């Protein structure tokens, strides 16, 4: 990996996006079943079908539809939902903040808590706190997101009654300002916890192994021999490269979190993109599904690119390779 690699990755970006677009488009249009039939029902008359086809541009040949769609997407128009009868971009924009809030808080939380737990375990390597962290992380990492969500509801919402079972706000309250924010935070706590726990486990395991590896390196011994304090050895000398494995998977983690969000939103009735997507799939609402898929894929691709840039900043051997 070197500069040329990064330049190549940047050049690859539009190509990957185009490939994603094409894949999604073909998938939807080559799938069995007719969206118009799904929309108007089996018994609709031919004229109505034709009207709908013309309305959504479905009467044109596939390549033309693709070109029109790609052009529209590049200008920010993701088409019109078959079912909702409104622009896809609008429907997505409406749901996006809830999902960004959920995944964003989970991303931050899992990074901070995961790395802290990893450091905690690695610095007590071979003793029981390390073993406990390691085993817990291993177990949580293997648990499906919906199980964690359901257990959290059973324990903290239905059992202890500390948190609401579902939703993003208390439906009856019409308050604004700080109380509203607090209300959202109260509703966010459990979904964020459910979504983040598996990520915490993954990050903790990766940073623990990374730190253990790094603390065994010769240059750490050099730092200690120089008289650098142990805390500084860990934070300044070891952590930087110990977190490389954590950084490597950052792009993948964004994809993982968004996928997890679909499940978590289903479990907690969180009004985000995941709910929109699942509903759209049940209704065979192609434009919405394609729009969400496109957004997620591009987000993940960009996250991967940022990961590479971050990586090269952390390791000068990559930068000057």
């Amino acid at each position: 990996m070197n500069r040329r690699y990064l330049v190549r990755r940047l050049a690859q970006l539009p190509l990957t996006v185009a490939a994603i677009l094409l894949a999604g488009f073909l998938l939807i249009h080559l799938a069995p079943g007719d969206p118009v039939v799904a929309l108007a029902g089996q018994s609709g008359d031919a004229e109505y079908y034709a009207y709908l086809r013309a309305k959504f541009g479905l009467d044109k040949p596939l390549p033309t539809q693709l070109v029109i769609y790609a052009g529209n997407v590049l200008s920010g128009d993701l088409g019109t939902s078959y079912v909702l009868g409104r622009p896809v971009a609008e429907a997505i924009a409406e749901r996006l903040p809830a999902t960004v809030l959920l995944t964003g808080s989970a991303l931050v939380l899992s990074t901070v808590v995961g790395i802290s737990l990893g450091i905690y375990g690695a610095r007590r390597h071979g003793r029981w706190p390390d073993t406990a962290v390691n085993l817990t992380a291993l177990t949580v990492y293997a648990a499906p997101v919906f199980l964690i969500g359901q257990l959290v509801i059973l324990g903290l919402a239905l059992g202890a009654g500390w948190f609401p079972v579902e939703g993003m706000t208390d439906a009856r309250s019409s308050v604004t300002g700080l109380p509203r924010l607090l209300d959202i935070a109260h509703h966010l706590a459990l979904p964020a916890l459910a979504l983040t726990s598996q990520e915490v486990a993954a990050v903790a395991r990766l940073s623990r192994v990374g730190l253990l590896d790094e603390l065994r390196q010769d240059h750490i011994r050099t730092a200690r021999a120089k008289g650098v304090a142990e805390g500084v050895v860990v934070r300044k000398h070891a952590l930087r490269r110990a977190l490389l494995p954590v950084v490597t998977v950052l792009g993948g983690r964004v994809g993982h979190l968004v996928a997890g969000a679909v499940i978590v939103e289903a479990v907690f009735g969180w009004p985000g993109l995941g709910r929109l997507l699942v509903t759209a799939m049940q209704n065979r609402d192609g434009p919405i599904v394609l729009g969400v898929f496109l957004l997620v894929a591009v987000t993940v691709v960009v996250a991967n690119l940022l990961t590479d840039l971050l990586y090269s900043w952390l390791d000068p051997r990559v930068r000057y390779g």
Partner: protein
Amino acid sequence: MTAGPVLSVRDLVVRFRVHGRPTTVVHGVDLDISPGETLGLVGESGSGKTVTVLAATGLLPAPPVCTVRGTVLLGSRDLLTMDRRTLRSVRGREIGMVFQDPMTSLHPSFRVVDQVAEALLVHDRALARGVACRRAIELLEQVGVPHPGRRAGDYPHQWSGGMRQRAMIAMAIANRPRLLVADEPTTALDVTIQAQILEVLRAARDGTGAATVLITHDLGVVAQLADRIAVMSAGRIVETGPAVEVFAAPGHPCTRILLSAVPRLDRPAAPRPEPVRGPAVLEVRDLVTHYRTPGDRTVRAVDGVSLRLAAGETLGLVGESGCGKTSLARTVLRLVDATSGSVLLRGTDITQARGRRLRVIRRSLSMVFQDPYSSLNPRMTVGEIVAQPLRVAGRFRAEGGARRVADLLDLVGLDPGLAARLPGQFSGGQRQRIGIARALALSPEVLVLDEPVSSLDVTVRAQVADLLSRLQRELGLAYLLIAHDLALVRDLSDRVAVMYLGRLVETGTRDQVFGHPMHPYTRSLLAAVPVPDPRCRYSVPLMPTGDPPDPADPPSGCRFRTRCRIATAECPEVVPELVPRAGGDHFCACIHPAEIPLRRGP
């Protein structure tokens, strides 16, 4: 300074927990180091010498893994019972340390200058960052890093091993410590760089007046610096005494083994049978091998080399790592393609051969590899490995099948009954014998030996070298021997070629090259081999200076001129040709060949 020892170790015991089982690695070591003294702590690998010093400075892993008992007094304070804050203020300020592998001992993500400056900043809160960096540059200058100010932005991976080790020494002496510990400081380096680093260490010691502990397995290295020697074996000190006495009359068997493992260029060479001047089996003419690097630079690995190898003789090829000797061997074997020039095997040029014809030609040319671990396929039995060349050539049946394999194993001194085992079950020496048996399978005429013993244990080296000599006598093989161990090359070779940066600088019989070296490079190479005798230390005027230049951008004229102590204004202008000197078959490529023979020994 106190009158007592700087460091006093009493009854040091170190235990490791390996797979849950406690193992004692150091059994009650006592050591004293007086002010200004240099102690050589020597022993084989695994004798506990490094662990002793790491335990004394608290650099071993924490208790469940590793426990340390005893007392380690630095002046009057016990390092083992000291609290962590105090211990930290001692490390790097009163004790400076240099470690074995300079490639891994520096932090890869921080600039070298910052790492040296950190050694100062850690112990002086009041010091400004800029001042520390300027002081770090001075320190780097002091240990012989050329133009450190210009290289202030460099990261470790941009520096050579020798330069990195200089940086380690700069760090160790930054705070003028009372005690300097150097743990195998030159083991990972070329012999020429080793000589330079030992000089830097000597100057660092003399400049700071620090008492010094030099840990090494190489008695040649320790003889250059130590006043007193302590020999360790299996976690105990088995012999101590003044360096001169220990070298003159080694008392313990371990000391004698260590001493016998040192290549001795100061002793007469092993006798060789009269060289047979037969016809050339292998001839290399104006061979050029260039590589393209990913950065689109051309590395001139081999840049116009001619050689001649007669039947039954050994040609030794020597030079620093990176000089192109391995590339030359790989080109001869067609593992890489020549850029130009020719390789004649019994008069036939093999550089252009392809496919089937190449495979047939290859049968009379074979190779023994350096690493006995990487050179055998771990998933094939020994029998299959040895039989492979026979099967490929379609001669397995004709040559007697399993019987031929058994004979080959027997020939190299292995039990043929072991043919069904996997390589993982053999020791390094045995594996190297398997590699030799494989190389002999098709009865080749020429064997290329690439560092055939350098990866083996010291005790096994001589056995494998003897085996190679015996096989040469019995089978009439011609050897192209590549090795950095000059004493081994001298013992096994009839003729020697010295290579520098892709070119040959001197060739001749071994007595000519080793006895009357003419090229300044050959002379410095020989002078850099440490003699295990404290009365016979390096002679500074013969030392080569600096690092070898970048083979992608070699100097004009004579390539050695940038490191040569006798270079003149003519040297960059004239490309010196290999021309015969004195004896007629002694060739040297230098416009100022030395007339005075190199003196070795007391």
